[in-house]
């Protein structure tokens, strides 16, 4: 019996609206179609009418969870256009906050995946521990989610000497918990049953489909922007890129738990080696003409910002490629052949963040031609459609 099962845009297992149409044969997925576009916000279009300083705040709101990665990426792009050198201390603070965000995101992911597996207890525990790191971020920046720390030319808030001790203490706790979760996730038979060998993405496929972040690293590909093309202070901090060769959800889980431990080590090192000095430099409002690209390893994977300036105080084009968009192709590959019961776990496995990934792209069903529309085209199309329909 072949079923068509819709999964989303509203579904208890998905926090964000995306639609998967599964073709099911005896609980096994034989085909999947994805549909995006439910939360398109037109951020790239808005950007063309805002100045560079305002865009820092806009970029922070691309994604709630990796807000720091987006601002970091954006700031780096503008700094490159300006030919600006950021103070050393600012670079270290950026590194520390980026890693804290990674810890926060990975705990969130662990909890969500546990919930998809139907393991409520692990979900509650992981989110309780996530609270510790969020409190630290709150202490440094004054906010729990959108920190507002990054700015063009440095950071807005310093890490005071007095807070370091508290950060160290919470890191110790988090490290202990991460050890505990490693033990739980490698030993618990019900977790192993649900994750080992589920949602396979072979290294060759991962490379061909351009998987990024923990998804790629769980397929044995050591792809990490922090190591490949160091930004902020990553060049001065020794750390290892975590890879696993299992290619399944279990490996994605272990990669993330090990990355938590690695991040804790990075933060400790950075806190110790943080140089004194200013945390930001003054920047001009106008940006010289040019193009720049910046890459940042967000918790979910590689984050890419492209900026084209025309010499005014507003950018001409700002292109964002969030990690989820890069991983969607791999996700569709992973989902085929998976049991219906494993679908939520596999989807959660790439840590999707749909709102980041939404762009307008039209695909002609007959000719398979793909074209990207901008606002003018949409406006023209809307007018034509109404003219045709109502004879305006």
């Amino acid at each position, binding site marked *: 019996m072949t079923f068509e099962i819709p999964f989303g845009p509203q579904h*208890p297992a998905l926090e964000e609206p995306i639609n998967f149409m599964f073709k099911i044969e005896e609980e096994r997925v034989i085909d999947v179609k994805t549909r995006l576009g439910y939360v398109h916000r037109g951020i790239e279009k808005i950007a063309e009418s805002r100045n560079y300083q305002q865009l820092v705040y806009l970029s922070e709101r691309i994604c709630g969870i990796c807000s720091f990665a987006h601002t970091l990426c954006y700031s780096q792009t503008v700094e490159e256009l300006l030919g600006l050198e950021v103070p050393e201390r600012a670079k270290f603070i950026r590194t520390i906050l980026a890693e804290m965000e990674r810890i926060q995101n990975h705990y969130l992911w662990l909890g969500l995946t546990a919930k998809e597996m*139907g393991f*409520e207890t692990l979900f*509650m525990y992981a989110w309780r521990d996530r609270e510790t790191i969020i409190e630290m971020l709150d202490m440094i920046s004054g906010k729990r989610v959108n920190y507002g720390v990054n700015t063009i030319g440095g950071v807005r808030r310093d890490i005071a000497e007095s807070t370091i001790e508290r950060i160290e203490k919470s890191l110790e706790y988090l490290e202990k918990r991460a050890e505990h979760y490693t033990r739980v996730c490698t030993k618990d038979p*019900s977790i192993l049953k649900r994750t080992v060998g589920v949602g396979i993405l072979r290294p060759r496929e991962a490379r061909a489909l351009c998987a990024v972040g923990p998804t790629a690293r769980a397929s044995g590909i050591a792809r990490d922007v922090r190591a490949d093309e160091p930004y902020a202070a990553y060049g001065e901090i020794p750390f290892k890129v975590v890879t696993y060769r299992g290619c399944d959800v279990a490996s994605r889980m272990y990669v993330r738990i090990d990355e938590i431990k690695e991040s804790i080590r990075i933060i400790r090192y950075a806190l110790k080696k943080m140089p004194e000095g200013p945390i930001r430099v003054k920047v001009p409002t106008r940006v010289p003409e040019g193009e720049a690209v910046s890459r940042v390893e967000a918790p979910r994977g590689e984050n890419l910002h492209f900026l084209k300036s025309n010499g005014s105080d507003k950018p001409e084009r700002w292109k964002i490629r969030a990690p989820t968009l890069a991983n969607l192709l791999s996700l569709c590959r992973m989902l085929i052949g998976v049991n219906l*019961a494993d679908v939520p776990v596999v989807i959660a496995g790439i840590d999707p963040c749909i709102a980041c990934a939404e762009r307008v792209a039209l695909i002609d069903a007959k000719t398979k031609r793909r074209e990207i529309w901008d606002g003018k085209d949409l406006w023209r199309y809307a007018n034509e459609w109404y003219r045709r329909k109502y004879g305006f």
Partner: protein
Amino acid sequence: MVSEEIWILIEIFLFPGFLFLFSLAFFTEWFDRKIVARFQNRYGPLHVGPKGILQPIADFFKLLSKEDITPRAADKVPFRLMPILLLTLAIAPLFCIPIMGSNGLISFEGDLVLIMFIMSLMALLVFIGGWASTNRFGTIGSIRAGLQMFAYEIPMNLSMIGPAISAGSLSVSKIVEWQINGVWNVLIQPVGFAVLTICLMAHLQRIPFDIPEAESEIVGGWLVEFSGKKLALIRLANDFEFVLASSLMASLFLGGPYGPWYISLITYLAKFLLCAFILSNLRAAFARYRIDHLLTGAWKYLTPLALLQVCLIKAWGI
């Protein structure tokens, strides 16, 4: 003469009849929720009544007052009948369980078979309810419910037959009496007790066997189209099933009520709560299994173990 009739009415409606059973069902839900919440480092129900003890009642009345929707495509008669039948069937076997003294309200030779039969019927009703809702998630959920029944039904019944063989009677009251004079069955049939516990978890559709509901996969499965009064009745029926499961464990394996009248009630409640605690504890400790995991597990391990237990009882002659 008249006083005897009044006594019977009190037994049926107040104690240990409807009033007591309803309170017990609501209390058990609260107990379960609170225990699981404590395991998960949460508070659980807190506001309605002392320590939130009235929360299940509040939830029940809230659901009763909600809009009751019957989907246009649903098979109306079974869809509407299913919650009522489920509740009735969940309450009925509880009258056979001895709560105070060693006799149930209704007790006859063979009532254990009736309980087994009604428990199978409940699983079938779940299947019918999900199927009648004609929702795609409901259909998948009900198929899963049917498959799940094939997995746990046989080992569950086998492990319930164990105490009956050793007591030489198919009546729950007789089994309880036999244990009062001899030893608790859990001491001589530990494997049967373990198998029964696992199978009851599957029968109650609790984590790790909430496969037919599986909120994160199929949005509530067979429950998806039920709302308002129907959902309230189904949830109440689930509470009664939970009471039935814990009572069965307590009376078949832990000796049931013991002693003069009020002490027997206290012993029953203590054993009952112990069993409810075991079931709640297990719920907090696992991730959900897949339906194929459950089926292979049940046929590979549970059924042979239950059979082995029955053989051992026969071999030892106890």
